[in-house]
């Protein structure tokens, strides 16, 4: 009987797979979630796997919401979210959740005004811009805090996020905290309906919008503004001071955070303190309280421990705020509760 050639070759190729000795299995840890801390987590992974070659960690920046969804569906070993998890979301995870603040960052208002290097925005000003009440750059609300700066008579284009995001959540939470008007008209959430302006997808989308639109102002993560050399404004904080986002001003905000007992989740939406930058926030790693696979559990715990200790020294150069020592201690305590 003549054997048909093509099916024979295909079958042989298939069977040959079983004859080839496979490479030793490395421990694969899959993580997914927020895009904001992604550069830092990827750096942690690179550094950690240098000293731990038997572990392979894969992190995908798919967004906080998608990260929570995958975490809830047990598709990943750990998740990441800028908006932590709501009580309802935590209840949906049967294995229990441990929230660990991994790092923190500031959200800045980057703008595109050729010739204007220093911009001071009062609370009234920046809330008004995003409510659509202040429409021109030479509006008195802006000029009165910027003496000597030549503000042109051009329209303000507010640049926002079109997709749901933790950045959106934090920024709108802050605006809602400082302005009852904003809270009533827009509210806060990962996705809101802005009364004015254009929207782009992701921090990079908003950055692109700001870059291509003269007279625009938008909210992006500090790292994106610095990396793309966008000037950003000094904002007036609760104490009345105009503060620019730096590691120090961000750390001052974080230091004021009070966590509720048993849960490391809080948003310093309107921090006290002269030096506090008003829009800084943590970003969380989501771990299960109970892991089925001890190898995965130990791998995740060890990696997160690395991030909380050695990993913090990479934070500043990448545009994040290193966690204050007291908070790191609380995180390590929480990490111990993962079984």
């Amino acid at each position: 009987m003549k054997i048909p050639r093509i099916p024979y070759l295909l079958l042989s190729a298939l069977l040959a797979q079983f004859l080839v000795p496979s490479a030793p299995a490395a421990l694969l840890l899959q993580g997914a979630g927020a895009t904001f801390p992604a550069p830092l987590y990827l750096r942690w992974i690179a550094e950690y796997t240098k000293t731990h070659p038997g572990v392979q960690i894969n992190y995908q920046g798919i967004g906080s919401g998608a990260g929570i969804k995958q975490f809830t569906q047990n598709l990943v070993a750990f998740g990441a979210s800028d908006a932590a998890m709501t009580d309802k979301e935590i209840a949906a995870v049967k294995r229990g959740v441990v929230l660990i603040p991994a790092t923190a960052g500031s959200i800045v208002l980057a703008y595109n005004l050729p010739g204007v290097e220093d911009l001071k925005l009062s609370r009234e000003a920046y809330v008004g811009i995003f409510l659509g009440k202040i429409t021109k750059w030479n509006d008195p609300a802006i000029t009165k805090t910027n003496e000597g700066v030549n503000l042109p008579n051009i329209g303000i284009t507010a640049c926002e996020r079109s997709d749901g995001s933790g950045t959106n959540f934090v920024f709108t939470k802050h605006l809602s905290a400082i302005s009852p008007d904003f809270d009533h008209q827009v509210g806060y959430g990962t996705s809101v309906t802005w009364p004015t302006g254009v929207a782009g997808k992701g921090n990079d989308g908003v950055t692109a919008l700001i870059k291509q639109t003269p007279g625009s102002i938008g909210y992006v993560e500090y790292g994106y503004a610095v990396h793309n050399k966008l000037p950003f404004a000094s904002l007036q904080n609760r104490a009345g001071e105009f503060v620019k986002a730096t590691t120090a001003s961000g750390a001052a905000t974080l230091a004021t955070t009070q966590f509720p007992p048993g849960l490391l989740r809080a948003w310093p939406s309107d921090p006290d303190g002269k030096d506090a930058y008003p829009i800084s926030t943590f970003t969380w790693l989501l771990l299960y309280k109970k892991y089925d696979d001890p190898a995965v559990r130990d791998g995740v715990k060890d990696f997160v421990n690395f991030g909380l200790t050695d990993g913090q020294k990479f934070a500043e150069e990448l545009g994040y705020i290193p966690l204050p020592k007291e908070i790191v201690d609380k995180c390590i305590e929480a990490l111990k509760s993962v079984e």
Partner: protein
Amino acid sequence: MKKTRRRLDLFHVLTWVASAATVFILLWILESIFTPALPMIQRSGLGFFTSIAWNVNRDVYGALPFVIGTAMTSLIALILALPLGVFIALFLSENFLPFWIRQVIRFVVELLAAIPSVVYGLWGIAVVIPIVQQFGGVLANSLGFLPLFQGPAFGNSTLTASLVLALMVLPTITAISRTTLANLPLTLREGSYAIGATRWETIFRVLLPSAAPGIVAATILAFGRAMGETMAVAMLIGNSPRLSWSLLSPGGTLAGLLANQFGEASGLQISALMYAALALVLLTLIVNMIGEAVLRHVEKSTAGIR
């Protein structure tokens, strides 16, 4: 009548399975969109498409701004692409220029269809947005009394998206129109010249009216393509959930809405987005079916005359 023996061999089975699989996949897609959309359908019914507010954090969903945005961008893209496409098609089907030049132009126009959507978006950001930013102000000042050109001109606006979309549907219109015009029987042209018509008269009084059904089919298919276009439009239109009749303001389309919000959606928002997706799918399906039907009819009716 002689009964032919039907052999049920491997070939017949495979082809049957392949064809059935295609139909099955289409139905499966429709079902997987329809089922999650049910909560929203039950809640709002058709009011979903007449309500303006899309407020995720308040759980209020109304898709009218996006429906209008989709309609506006597609229609304007067609208005711009149709004359351009038909004239190119005429040019390619007449013999003003040597054959090889026509072939090159035909090839280039078809290449436009091969450019990925996201590349059109990037090109739009680099080239079209600065142009619209510059001349938008002029347009707003001169024609600002019309609601269509009102208000501050944005670079990321419905106009920008429509311009790039016009380029994207141009190959569709051109290719089908050219084919229709070229397939018109030579006797039609010869007859027209024989009774003393000039070339222009032949083109506008004889050829175009005869090719009209084919051009209509081309337009409908291009409309279907324009409605579904996601990436390029989302990068250029400004993604605004607010209803605006002005071309110079940012807008939003159904496809862009889905691309932007689906990743982070949860709860009722998913249902609302699925409902919007269902509407978009059904709309493009119907438009494409009509387009195909008209095209089929045209091919049949001109096949006889040679």
